[in-house]
């Protein structure tokens, strides 16, 4: 297990993933804004939320990178394609399990069952996060392929 590689390259891979997502957002491909979604767990101000959310996302990304590094250690060592495959698994879990669960724990995210008393203002992601735009699954898949690929490539290069 390459602990130093995990510590450094996990941050690099998560930052790259975030950059891909923000680029897609600015290009009008998706409204999925992970820093905002995570940051509004702690504050309602979107500008502050994005800062907080970025660091939360880095932390979460580091935890996922630990899983990647452990898997690389168990299998044939890190490669970009194995990282990308793990990224595919990762995004499948994120889109079908993690994001749909978010309205259940997020204080500012409405649920599809929200009624008139709901004060939550963030729209729920819906199936495969499609509520944030029809291209959202494609963007998320590309971002996570990049995440896994970068992690595998950098760990392999060490």
């Amino acid at each position, binding site marked *: 297990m390459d602990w130093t590689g995990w510590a450094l390259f996990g941050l690099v891979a998560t930052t790259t993933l975030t950059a891909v997502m923000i680029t897609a957002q600015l290009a009008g491909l998706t409204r999925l804004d992970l820093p*905002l979604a995570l940051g509004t767990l702690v504050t309602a101000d979107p*500008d502050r939320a994005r800062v907080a959310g970025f660091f939360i996302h880095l932390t979460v990304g580091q935890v996922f990178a630990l899983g990647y590094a452990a898997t690389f250690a168990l299998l044939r060592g890190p490669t970009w394609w194995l990282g990308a495959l793990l990224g595919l698994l990762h995004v499948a879990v994120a889109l079908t399990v993690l994001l749909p669960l978010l309205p259940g724990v997020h204080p500012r995210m409405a649920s599809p069952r929200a009624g008139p008393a709901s004060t939550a*203002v963030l729209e729920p992601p819906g199936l495969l996060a499609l509520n944030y735009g029809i291209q959202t699954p494609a963007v998320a898949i590309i971002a996570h392929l990049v995440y896994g690929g970068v992690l595998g490539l950098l760990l392999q290069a060490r």
Partner: protein
Amino acid sequence: MYASRATDGSRVRRAALPRPIGDYGLLGDTRTAALVSSDGAVDWLCVPRFDGAPVFGRLVGGPTAGTFRVGPARSAAAVVARRYRGHTATLETTWALGERRLILSEAMVAEVAGRLLPSTLLVRRLSAEGGAVDAIVEFDPRLGERHRPPRVRRGRRALVCEWGSLAVSLGCAPELVVEPGRPAAITVTPDQPVTLVLAVGHREPLVEVDPATAWGLVAEDEARWEAWTAGIDRSLPYRDAAVRSLLTLRLLTYSPSGAPVAAPTTSLPEDPGGVRNWDYRYVWPRDASIGVAAFLGVGKVAEARGFLAWLLHASRLERPRLPVLLTLDGRHAARERQLQGWVGYAGSVPVRVGNGAADQHQLDGYGWVIDAAWVLVQAGHRLYSETWRALRGFADLVARRWPEPDAGIWELRDDAAQHVHSKLMGWLALDRALRIADTHRLPARQRRRWQAARDAIAAEVRTRGFDPAKKSYTRSYGSSDLDAALLILPLLGFEDVDSPRVRDTIDAIRNELSAGGPLLYRYPSGRDGLPGAEGAFLPCSFWLVQALARTGRHAEAVELFQALLDQANPLGLYAEEMDPSTGAHLGNFPQTLTHAALIQAALALRDPQRPADRQATAAQGRRQKAENRRAPSDDHPA
């Protein structure tokens, strides 16, 4: 347990003549809505949300599209009372059969979050007074475009109808044997009401709700609606009508995203028997913007902020372009198409889904949205920097594209034109953006660009958009046609409210576009390239009330407003249009824009000097700038 007696007569009778559009009442849970006629038939219900597939679509799909009728067995029974209970969403219909009464009380349960309840729950209770009354239950759910009949099974306590991932259950207490498509007769006695509970499960297991529990949930909802309406400004004139409109507006707001749907129906005709049939199960930024002012004006700040938050969130994918309309989730509307085999309301075909206006360029939308933000700023709310960035993007687009022709507020599908109303709203967008910039950061170069564009629009509209012969602003440059959308003129601050141009424009519209009584056409007949003719456009009449009130003609405004209130259906609901000769409601029903315009008219009667107030408040707002800077930001994440 009731033994049901099959009967087939009612279906044949009901197929003959459609109920008037204004005969329907609205049941809603802020996720979807049902329309129920005065004979107790739910003839429209889409699940699981406003824009879902209809399970009861008889209203525009004909007899094979499904219905759910609960009412008297004898057609001789007369409706003697129909009302919403107090300021709630519970509808009560009373039929008289001699000395006996049959009462249907019904509602959809709005507050289901945090509890093990289905997301759609319709509760209908029949009770009798003065003796036993024979009633009928006709339950015939059909799904979607092809009116698919369900796979039916009898559950432990309810009838279950399934179509793959969608299931609908019907429970009853006392127990009643119901077969889909086969009317069942029952006898309701005064000591034992009959409660029917319809639950919907979509991509989740059905949750069975005991009828007694369901009735308790309706009572809880009633208490919530009463509490919500109690918070509406007590000084609002014609408060009952305004409260019903606010409740309707809230019922038509999709709670999971905060989006106000334009109407819960598709293809109710503007011209019965004609082709003017459109899908309104979408969200127009214009409606949401008007809703911001309407809710804020009556003291419902959370709802007002929710609308602006939705606007900014939903428009994100296409910024800085503001889409003309969006889905409830803020997606681009589906391509418009015609449903094959749908007979339409009163033979009005085609029945359409999707909306072709989605790709149009309409300049006025930017004005509505930035003005809505300005209304919030005026009320002392500071915008988040992200919100302000989005608004600046809209204003930049207006400054760049205002000289282009557009489709205009009426979304005409022929060639774009230089619409005067659009230019005025472009002016409004830049003017309000500049006012917001008094308390929010704006680079000097951007400010100069907006000021230059605003002044250029004003100069051009004053020369090219005004017809000296008619003494009126016109529908488009070079045209002598009028446009009732120009009734917003006194609200903008573009001209002094006492100016002859404003007064003469109002009078000219009132004279030339009058449809008789309090009604107005939105533009001269035959100018939209569509066959047939449409009715009077109800929001325009409420805009006229507003215009009269704002220009100091209060008595005329009050008289007109009262006459318009008389045009509502017996439940206080309005469609988009009205047949001037018969008073029949036309078009999709009930309509958010009409109800929002009613509220704005009531607010104008309460605060007739509002444009001047706005200036004063703006000055006050500037004084409060320092305080605002210290206060936390007060709108929602975009």
